[in-house]
């Protein structure tokens, strides 16, 4: 992640959980170099909840991978406050470990002493309301429970920044709704910064303090909205619906441009 030059110290202690500066990313494809992300600049303040919204091909997952340090930007720099935790669309829990042991592995790899791991894992399970599921195997859990264990495992990394790559996209609507409430509560309780990627406009508005819309091919920041609707919000609340409609219109406009070539 230390792609930034030592300039970071000069910036007058502007705190940020993540700072993405003029980041571009291109992949070599069959049609030569393909630009996926074009000059993205975005800061996430400590404790802030930001959603990245975009249609297919906007490179939002690519951007998240770059922030997570799984890949390197072609240009620009990314600095984060420590190693971020990452949650995927699939739960990505290890099936050879129980729910509790999955969390303990994250603690172990972070260097938490053996004696403290069990207790900390139980606490995290309680935080995601899965008390008593410590010994459950991954396949014994429902989809919603798996994502909550995955959330607990991500929180076990004790990162200042939680990256979420469409973590609720594969869940049914009822479960997703409940997990939105759950995430809002956990975000408020832990004070972690969240960068949340989604293609679901209402989800973005329901959760975030700030919605960042990316255009597609290449991904550029098209527009940004502050969401001042007080939490707890519901996805069917009128102000959420109203702002969603506005954002959807802009998003549709962005998508239409691609049909015109």
């Amino acid at each position: 992640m230390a792609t930034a030059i030592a300039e970071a110290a000069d910036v007058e202690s502007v705190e940020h959980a993540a700072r993405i500066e003029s980041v571009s990313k291109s992949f070599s494809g069959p049609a030569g170099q393909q630009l996926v992300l074009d000059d993205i600049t975005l800061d996430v303040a400590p404790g802030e909840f930001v959603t990245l919204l975009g249609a297919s091909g906007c490179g939002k997952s690519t951007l998240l991978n770059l922030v997570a340090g799984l890949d390197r930007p072609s240009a620009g720099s990314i600095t984060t406050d420590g190693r971020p935790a990452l949650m995927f669309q699939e739960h990505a829990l290890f099936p050879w470990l129980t729910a509790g042991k999955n969390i303990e592995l994250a603690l172990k790899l972070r260097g938490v002493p053996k004696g403290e791991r069990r207790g900390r894992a139980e606490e995290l399970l309680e935080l995601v309301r899965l008390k008593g599921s410590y010994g459950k195997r991954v396949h014994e859990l429902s989809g919603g429970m798996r994502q909550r264990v995955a959330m607990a495992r991500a929180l076990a990394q004790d990162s200042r920044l939680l990256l979420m790559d469409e973590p609720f996209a594969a869940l049914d609507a009822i479960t997703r709704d409940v997990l939105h409430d759950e995430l809002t509560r956990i975000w408020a309780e832990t004070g972690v910064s969240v960068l949340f990627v989604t293609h679901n406009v209402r989800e973005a508005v329901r959760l975030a303090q700030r919605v960042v819309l990316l255009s597609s091919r290449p991904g550029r920041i098209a527009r940004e909205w502050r969401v001042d609707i007080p939490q707890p919000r519901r996805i069917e609340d009128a102000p959420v619906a109203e702002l969603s409609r506005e954002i959807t219109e802009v998003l549709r406009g962005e998508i239409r441009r691609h049909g015109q070539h």
Partner: protein
Amino acid sequence: MASTETTETTSDASAKDGLGGLEAGLDALETTAVGRPPLRQTLLNKVLPPVVAVAVVLVVWQGLISLKIVDDPTKLPSPADVGNEFKDAWLSGTLLDYIWTSISRGLLGFLFALAIGTPLGLLVARVKFVRAAIGPILSGLQSLPSVAWVPPAVIWLGLNNSMMYAVILLGAVPSIANGLVSGIDQVPPLFLRAGRTLGATGLKGAWHIVMPAALPGYLAGLKQGWAFSWRSLMAAEIIASSPDLGIGLGALLENGRNASSMSMVFEAIILILFVGIAIDLLIFSPLERWVLRSRGLLVRN
């Protein structure tokens, strides 16, 4: 501002209660309890069918003798004759010796194969150059019958136990290594990415993520490796018999042929089959099923 905060926290607390209950309800609705089937059902589904199959074979066999369809004990001995052969060997105390001679060789050889095949498999799976160099040879060796190795092994090492082990190794090492390679190749990339974000890179990643994720493929390789070990050993024992080597099951078969005792040949064949099945049933199958079940990969109808 203060007032809004208090209303927020109270409404948040009540929502929390409602949310917790809602979640508990969802969890209960979406998980189904799975337990082990009762013992009686296991006996009925798993034990009865093979017992019936063996009984049918015995009845047909006895029928061939009783109805004088095959009336030549040098071609087909009666079940009773073969039974007597077992009884004699048991009473003279040699039956367990035959079995132990072969099993101890087989298992020791298999352990050697394990110790060589595992690091070899890791190397082939993880180092591109090694894979390109010997990967195809390793796969090819699996299709070479290990009997082919007996003549050169006898010439190189002489008629002794080392030659037996050499034949076992040449049969089993490729299976074990290939099993591990395919196990590692099939590790979902998502696990590797998840591992990396948790900080499991390099050796830590191999130990905490790659090896456990590859375990099902590895176990399948071990199972096949045992089958190859056992077959290679029998081939070696049948071809290379020498009084110094002791009498294992392969030698017993060869002795039966030399003595024109068809009941002894049958005894040996039954024992070889029995040991091969028993080891698989007692060691490898339970291990494999345990691993698959704990990962939810075993489909139960």
